[in-house]
């Protein structure tokens, strides 16, 4: 609303409304009407009192009380000025990112966020809270990302999104269009956006324990082309070993031993005269296991006590068990033999979405993926060689990864660090959870933009929401789907907006349209992966080649082929697989007749 007085305009937003009538109680109306029910509902005189919060005054200085004047409903332009969007949506260099419309009584004024405050450098990060299903959190983030990709000005640089899919099929179909209602289509038009799916999406999912079927619900054959395996070897894992180890009682001694492995042993030439063998080059988990065994053998044989190079045997055993644990619990993500298949570090593309699907993997493996992916993003952005200038990282179910109570895990520390320092690097966290009160305060507190969907009343009763007016709280508890309350640095009061459904298939629609393929038999799964590299590869040929082979050998050859991305994937794969040498019985020769004239040609005497 807008109040106008001579030389002064005040914009405000209604927070509360009360009606006063000449009757003390509603029942009085019925009494008054002398039993005529029809008359009881007839209009009566009433006074309505609206309490509004001032959003903006013009001129701003000097600060004055709100003058008496006519009050009007706001227009689009009024909304823009009231929310201070005029500073960043107009002019030569707009930085507005549309997020929905504000409106009452027929008004639907576009509301935008300031990119400088959403993606940095001024402020950054976005957090969204609300109850499951009704709050439309995941949908909202999908819509926001689409809006960012369309509206983020080119002169501000390139931007990509990295989404962790942590729940079922949630983010599995971002490249598939959805049918929208006319209302939603109109809403897109109103916001100046096109309702279209993401056109450059790359999916990465760890394998299942068989090493060839992917651990994701996006396994429909039509979607195979941009769905790739995510597998890491020893090198990749050891760098982030802390992640896996700090959950337990890991001590400084074990840390020191891991550092030793990382700095001196893995991937290096390591000389150890006391071990058998003396020269080591540990590249894979299998090598590492041999290395551990050699240490234990040496300790056993030397009777020199329990220390190997200042590390106690108990520490070494502990580290070995923990690392061994990773290969079992994260089987399918972690490969024994070093071949890795990874995100395109250094070659991220502008307006591309990279979805890492960890919905189906063990929590330990999830932590490992979070830790390594976010750390790598950070490293590359620090060196400015990721391929894009900004990355939005979307972490759904934040309460699981950065809980307010519970152990201070590596992942939580990392998310905190991201929320505190990311904006200088162009590393932006979009996060969502049902209960904000269950998330580490400092992580959500660092979000420049905070959004609420339909809220749980108990949650609203917690201390964090005390500053909201009772009417706002009631409104939050009853918000319909598609409506959100937004706090943003430019807005002096929270603003309610309506956003359209994302133009992509939801997880539920997606699995209906593209039902996940059942786990393929080993050879077909291999064929499918080869076909993603080279559509000409037939299942029959692969079956003929792979039949009777050891699965480990096939997996290794497949990993090599994926890494090399050769023109002729099938020949390359065949070469990697190597010719199979059939066993033959080594038959003994019973008797051998010596030469008849046994002269030794090299005898010392002629």
């Amino acid at each position, binding site marked *: 609303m807008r109040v106008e007085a001579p030389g002064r305009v005040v914009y405000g937003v209604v927070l509360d409304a009360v009606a006063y009538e000449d009757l003390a109680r509603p029942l009085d109306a019925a009494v008054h009407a002398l039993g005529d029910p029809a008359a009881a509902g007839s209009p009566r005189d009433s006074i309505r009192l609206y309490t509004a919060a001032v959003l903006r005054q013009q001129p701003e200085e000097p600060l004055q009380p709100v003058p008496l004047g006519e009050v009007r409903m706001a227009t689009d332009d009024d909304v823009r000025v009231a929310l201070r969007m005029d500073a960043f949506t107009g002019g030569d260099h707009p930085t507005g990112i549309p997020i929905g419309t504000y409106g009452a009584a027929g008004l639907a004024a576009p509301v935008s966020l300031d990119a400088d405050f959403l993606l940095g450098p001024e402020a950054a990060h976005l957090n969204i809270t609300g109850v499951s299903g009704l709050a439309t959190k995941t949908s909202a983030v999908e819509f926001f990302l689409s809006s960012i990709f369309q509206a983020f000005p080119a002169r501000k640089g390139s931007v990509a999104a990295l989404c962790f899919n942590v729940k079922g099929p949630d983010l599995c179909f971002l490249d598939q269009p959805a049918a929208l209602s006319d209302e939603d289509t109109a809403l897109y038009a109103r916001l100046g956006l096109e309702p279209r799916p993401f056109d450059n999406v790359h999916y990465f999912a760890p394998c299942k324990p068989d090493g060839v079927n992917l651990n994701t619900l996006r396994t429909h054959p039509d979607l195979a082309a941009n769905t790739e395996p995510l597998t890491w070897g020893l090198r990749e894992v050891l760098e982030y070993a802390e992640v896996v180890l700090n959950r337990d009682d890991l001590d400084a001694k074990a840390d020191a031993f891991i550092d030793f492995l990382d700095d001196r042993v893995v991937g290096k030439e390591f000389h150890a005269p006391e071990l058998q063998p003396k020269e080591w*080059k540990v590249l894979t988990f299998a090598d590492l296991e041999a290395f551990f065994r050699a240490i234990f053998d040496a300790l056993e044989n030397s009777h020199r006590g329990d220390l190997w190079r200042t590390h106690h045997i108990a520490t070494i055993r502990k580290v070995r068990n923990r690392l061994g644990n990773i290969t079992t619990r994260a089987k399918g993500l972690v490969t024994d033999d070093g071949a890795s298949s990874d995100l395109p570090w250094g070659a991220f593309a502008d307006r591309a979405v990279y979805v890492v699907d960890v919905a189906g993997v063990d929590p330990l493996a999830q932590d490992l993926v979070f830790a390594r992916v976010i750390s790598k993003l950070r490293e590359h952005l620090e060196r400015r060689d990721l391929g894009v200038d900004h990355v939005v990282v979307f972490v759904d179910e934040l309460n699981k990864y950065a809980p307010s109570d519970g152990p201070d895990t590596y992942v939580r520390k990392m998310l905190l660090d991201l929320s505190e320092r990311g904006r200088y690097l162009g590393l932006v966290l979009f996060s969502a959870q049902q209960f904000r009160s269950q998330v580490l305060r400092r992580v959500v507190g660092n979000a420049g933009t905070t959004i609420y969907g339909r809220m749980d009343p108990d949650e609203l009763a917690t201390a964090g929401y005390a500053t909201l007016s009772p009417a706002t709280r009631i409104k939050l508890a009853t918000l319909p789907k598609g409506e959100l309350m937004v706090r943003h640095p430019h807005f002096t009061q929270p603003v309610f907006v309506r956003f359209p459904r994302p133009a992509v298939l939801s997880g539920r629609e997606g699995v209906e349209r593209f039902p996940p393929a059942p786990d393929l038999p080993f050879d077909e799964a291999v064929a499918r992966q080869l076909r993603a590299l080279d559509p000409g590869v037939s299942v029959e040929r692969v079956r003929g080649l792979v039949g009777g082979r050891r699965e480990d050998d096939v997996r290794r050859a497949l990993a090599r082929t994926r890494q090399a991305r050769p023109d002729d994937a099938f020949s390359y794969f065949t070469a990697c697989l190597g010719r199979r040498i059939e*066993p033959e019985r080594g038959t003994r020769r019973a008797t051998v007749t010596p030469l008849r004239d046994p002269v030794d040609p090299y005898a010392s005497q002629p």
Partner: protein
Amino acid sequence: MKLAHLADLHLGFRQYHRQTPAGINQREADTAMAFRQAVDGIIAARPDVVIVAGDLFHSVRPTNAAIVFAFQQFQRLHAALPDAPVVLIAGNHDTPRSAETGNILRLFEEVGVHVASNEARRFVFPELELSVLAVPHEALAQAERPLLRPDGSARYEVLVAHGEVDGVFPSDRSTVEYGGAVVQPDEFGLGEWSYVAFGHYHVRTELGPRAWYAGALEYVSSNPWGELRDEAEKGVEGKAWLLIDLDSGRATPQPIIPARRVLDLPRLDGTALAAEELQAAIVARVAAVDGGITDRVIRLVVTGVPRHVARQLDHAVIRGWKAEALHFHLDLRPPSPTRSTGVGAPGRRQTLPELVESYLGQRALPAGVDREAFVREGVDLVASAERELAED
């Protein structure tokens, strides 16, 4: 379960001019003696299986003497250890370049040897619960290599192959035998085999857990000096074959007592020495050789000797040493050239190997030829030619 691993016998290898009373090249006879000694040792050690990891012969067409001798040794082995299979693969030295030539190694099948000469073979010996994947040089030189992994066909699974394991050789590569197929360390599943027996590199080297180059039994390369240096660097003493306990993985070198020592005397620096001073220093060096130089293979490198000083040395004395030793090489090296003035382009003139390298680096190549390998081969060839000149 015990396994004997020997490699790079190079029977028929000839070097230097000394002959035995029977008219055979002395180093060829030495090489044969080393093998005979190894066979004696193996018979005494009674292993369950014997592996010969390539380069039994120094050349594709060995002399009759070498063939007959090898035949006798294998026959002897079979007679003494009738239950121990012998597995033999061809190396790059005993693999003919064209297939029609046929491989002499097949002959030893007659004495019960299991031979893989051009194709990989997997021999299974059920009574020993043993399988041996035998991969000759030729099988690694082909485009489609065999898969170098165990197949679970036996309790003990052994790989025997002949080639260059990438990253194991010293970086200056002067002791690398030419023509070996390169195998990546991750190609053969270290740790998956009961044992991996490699041949090709003449210096005994542990490749990883349960994997070795046994090394040669004698100094049978054109560059024994580089071999000595590699051995010193690795702390390897002399030549040996390996006796492996397949259960524990322990490898015990079984030393060969050499027919004669091969010695590279400590270097002398001749810089700023007059001819007489230098002569005195050389004489002292030679006199200090423990056990003398008689019948040995000796080299003495003297650096910083200008040509006019070299000419003034007492060559009669040096000739005497050459007659006394089996081979005596006084390697007088001129001071390294310093060009202070020059005509034409400024800067240092390229050495021959550098010139070759830069030329080959730019030369047009047929499609599919790996330039790096091509250049390396060229440079190696030049280096070997240079060394051979230096040796004579």
